[in-house]
Structures are given as C-alpha cells and as structure tokens.
C-alpha cells in the first residue's frame, strides 16, 4: 500500500496558553476524501492551516505527501502540490476574477500563456465565465466561494484542502460542486474537507473524523460511524404542537392543562428507545424498531408531530458531544 497522503501523530497547536489542537492522530490515504467535522472552534481550520503550511506545527509529527512538515523545512515542496480553498474569502478585491486567477497561477510556475489557458478552464469548471471581468468584490457570496475553489485548483494539486467549501452556496451550486469534487477524486486527487453539513460529509467523505475542543472524538466511514454510535432509525416527536413546552427536566408545561398525561406518554416512549435526547421542543428517540415506536407515539400523543427517519451523522454528533453542530 502506498504511503499515506497525510499522517498526523500527536499533533498539537497552541495559541498562547489556549490549546486549539490537542494531540490528534489521523491518517489520510491517497485518493480518498477525508472529512473534518465539529462545532465552531473545534480546531478544524487550525488543523487545515497546519496541513497547507500556512501555520507552523505546534508539536507532534505531521507527514504530508512524504515530507515531514513539523520543522517547516519542506514547506515549499509541500505547498507546490497542495491546493487550498480557505474558509475566509481572501480573493484580491482590487483585481478582476480573471486577473485573480491569472496572477495566482504564476505562483505555481505557470507561464503567462499557460496561466491564461488554465484560468479559462477553471472559470468554465466553476461556471463563472460570464463573471470573468467583474471585480472580486462584485461577486455574490456563493460566486466568491466558487472563485476560491477555482483558485485552489490552479496548481493542479495532488492534495486539495477545502475549508467549508460549500458554506453559502445555494443547493444547486452545492450539488454541482459535489459533482466537481467527485470528478477530482476520479482523477486520483486526495481531498480533505471540513464542513458543517452532515449530508455533504455523508455524500462525499470516504472517512471522517469528528473534532471537539481540539480533540478527535470519533472517526470512521460515515455509515460505520452511524452503525457504531446510534441506532438505525430515529423517531422525532415535536411536542410543542401539543401546545405545551417540553421542559429540560422532561416535564411538559401546558398552561391550564394537566401535563401529567403527556409526561407519562413521553416516559413510555423513552423507555421503548435505546437512547433518547431532547433538543428544545424536539424529542429524539433512537430506535431499531422504528415502525413500532412511531405508531405508538402517534397513539399516545395524537397532536404531536411525529416523524420516522434514518439516523444521520448529525445524530452521531449529537450523541458524542451532547449538543448541536451549529450552535
């Protein structure tokens, strides 16, 4: 088996006294799409910046495309083979979109003519041809992201690091981009991406890690993670439709109405589930016998909205961190 594209061993990074990345280990194989999930401030961007060599390694080992990056001596060799789509928009606002791409192409050693050809190809690829002569600040948010993706591809990278590539894209643009990323994967590129969209991670990532507070709290293939950490199905019960409010202590507060019946119903339902969680007015029941539980829920709480669905990565996340991904 070929050596990994990226391998981190006990990778750490502090900002002053603050520990942003707290001793993580992972191994990304060549040609795979590897995801980093986690709430705001988990340390995803910090990890990405260490990988694409914009930020020094704090301590530990970080092997990138066969080069040890911890000392920083190999940065130039590494960076020539990595493409970067940063989380923050840093297009050059003084230049047009076409100039942005042509100027940045030269950093990868392309000649003027090659830069022009590559720019046209990539504008086509991200479907921004008609905006080629607009100044960068005149692009919409989603167009800027697509422009950043084009810029990240200028050097024809073996390894593409995408920090929240689809944040701000409309659904159509997102799906188009997924298709583009799959194209790149077919061409054997290694993709590393961070995202807050669970469906995106499930769609694209062969494997992923979930980070929280600088640590990796779970890792594996999306399906395996779901199998491992949560039941196959979830029954959601929206109790607020009952014109009451589900309290954090499990009681339902219904002005003027006795809530004891509801409480009994809720406790019967939770006892049928392998595990349950409450998020505001939603009760989540993790079950393997979904049909049975959803039927019972409809009987017990006829006014509540009930829903049976497959478990997702979001459920995995909720279970692991005990809070929502997007706070």
């Amino acid at each position, binding site marked *: 088996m070929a050596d990994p594209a990226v391998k981190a061993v006990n990778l750490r990074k502090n900002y002053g006294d603050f520990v942003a990345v707290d001793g993580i280990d992972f191994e990304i194989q060549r040609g795979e799409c590897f995801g980093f999930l986690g709430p705001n401030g988990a340390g995803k961007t910090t990890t990405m910046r260490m990988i694409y060599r*914009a930020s020094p390694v704090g301590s530990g080992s970080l092997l990138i495309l066969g080069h040890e990056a911890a000392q920083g001596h190999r940065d130039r060799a590494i960076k020539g083979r990595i493409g970067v789509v940063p989380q923050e928009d840093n297009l050059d606002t003084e230049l047009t979109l076409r100039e942005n791409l042509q100027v940045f192409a030269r*950093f990868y050693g392309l000649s003027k003519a090659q830069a022009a050809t590559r720019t046209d190809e990539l504008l086509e690829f991200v479907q921004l041809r008609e905006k080629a002569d607009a100044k960068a600040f005149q692009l919409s948010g989603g167009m800027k992201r697509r422009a950043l993706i084009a810029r990240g591809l200028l050097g024809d990278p073996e390894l593409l690091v995408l920090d929240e590539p689809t944040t701000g894209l409309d659904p159509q643009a997102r799906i188009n981009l997924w298709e583009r990323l799959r194209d790149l994967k077919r061409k054997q590129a290694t993709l590393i991406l961070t995202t807050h969209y669970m469906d995106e991670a499930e769609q694209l990532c062969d494997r992923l890690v979930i980070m929280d507070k600088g640590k990796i709290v779970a890792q594996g293939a999306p399906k395996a993670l779901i199998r491992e950490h949560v039941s196959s199905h979830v029954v959601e019960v929206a109790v607020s439709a009952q014109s009451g409010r589900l309290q954090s202590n499990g009681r339902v507060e219904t002005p003027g109405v006795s809530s004891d019946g509801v409480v009994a119903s809720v406790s019967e339902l939770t006892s049928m589930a392998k595990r349950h969680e409450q998020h505001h007015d939603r009760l989540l029941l993790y079950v393997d016998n979904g049909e049975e539980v959803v039927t019972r829920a409809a009987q017990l709480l006829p006014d509540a909205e009930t829903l049976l669905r497959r478990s997702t990565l979001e459920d995995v996340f909720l279970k692991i961190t005990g809070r929502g991904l997007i706070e």
Partner: protein
Amino acid sequence: MNLPGDINLTTALSVWRRNKTEYSHSWMTNILPNFFDPVLYLLGMGLGLGMFVGRGVGGLTYIEYIAPGLMAASAMQGASFETTYNVFVKMNFARLYDAYLATPALIQDIAFGELLWAVTRGLIYGMAFMIVLGGFTLFGHRILISPFAVLLPVAMALTATMFALIGLTFTASIRNINYYGFYYTLWLTPLFLFSGIFFPLNDPKIAGGHGETIAWFTPLFHCVRLMRALAQGPLDWTHAASALIVLGVIAALFVIVPRRMRRRMVS
C-alpha cells in the same frame, strides 16, 4: 531559481506582477499625485523661493541646488508609500498575504516581491522627475551636467531599496495603521527637510557647525549627496563611503525584514 535567503524568484515576481496588475488599473490616481509632489517643490521652492535666495548656493542658482536632492526624495516617497500603507492593507485588511501563503510562496518571497515592487515604483517616480529635470537642463539650468548623471537611476534604486526596507521594518512592527502618522511626520518629513536638499548642512550657523556630522547618521542625507555629486559633480571618495553606508543599511535590513514579517504574520 532561489536567491540568497531562500528567496524564490518565481513567487517573488508573482507578487510583483500582482501589484503591477493593480497599478495598471489605477495609475492615474496612484502615480500622478506623487509625481507632482517633487515637481511642485521644484517650482515653488526653486523658482519662487529662489527669487529671494539671490546668491544661490555654491555657485548654483537655488533651483539648480535643490533639484538633485528632490530626485532622492521622490524615490524615497515612492518606495515608502508602497511599503507602508499599501503593504499594511494587503497584510492586515485584505488578507492577501494569507492567500499568497497558501501557494508555494514563503514569507521571504512575499517580502522580496513587495520590495521589488516598491523599488519599481520609486524608480518610476524618480525617473519621471529626472525627465523633468532633463527638460530644465535643456533650457540652460545646470542640473544634469555631469556625465555621471547616467548613474542617477542606480542611486535612485539604492534610495528606493533602502527606504522600502525601512518601511517594511516599520510595517512589520505595528498593529495599527494610525502609527504611520508618526512615521510620516516624525521621520520622513524631518528627513526631507534636514537632509541637505534645501540648504547646505556644513554652514557654521547650523547646529554649531556640526550639521553635516549629525546628518551622516541619517539615511536620506547620503542619497542626496550621491545624487548631487552624480548630477553636478564633483565626485570623491566620500561619495563611495555614502554608497557603502546605504548598501550596509540595505544588507542589514534585508536580513531583518523577513524575520520581522514572519514573527508578525505567522501564528
């Protein structure tokens, strides 16, 4: 190709080219104002004030006396503006250097590319002003009269390089753009006024006769006397000493600037 200090020329030139691209959009608003600056001083001080400085200085009329020094000031200003406000904005507000750092560029390449650009800009100003001075010379003013005047662009490049590096050092040391107020009013303006452009510093009335001795410890003074000697003569070994001092400052800052920028930018 890599230069000393592990500077990669391809990426450094890419930084330079980005600035050229921006400049090609905005030269009307960018180049013209700064170009008029020394021309206005030449006319206002040289012709206007010159009428009251009847005896001139050292056998030259007043406008002839101040013209070479203004060329040095023009190169200084072009390079300074570039490595102060412009670099600060790109580094801090536009986050452009973050984008550069995601390419094969390293910090020393960015610093060198900005330096090359600042020198280019200093040379553009200096040369434009030199052409104006050439016009005055044709009309009988003794300004570009020495054959060594062909070396003036070299002196301009030295001037621009030194002040570009001084500007980068300052820029890499501050976190708030308002500090440039100090840089301009307490540093560049005094240099402009007291570096021997407008009056000779070796006069006994100035600093008890020590004016020139003090000025030897300041940067623009050396550029001014180099320009004056190249344009109008006479050249002697003290000018070689001035050139060496400028080169020494350049060499020292060339080492310091990438380190400072690294400390400022990398976290």
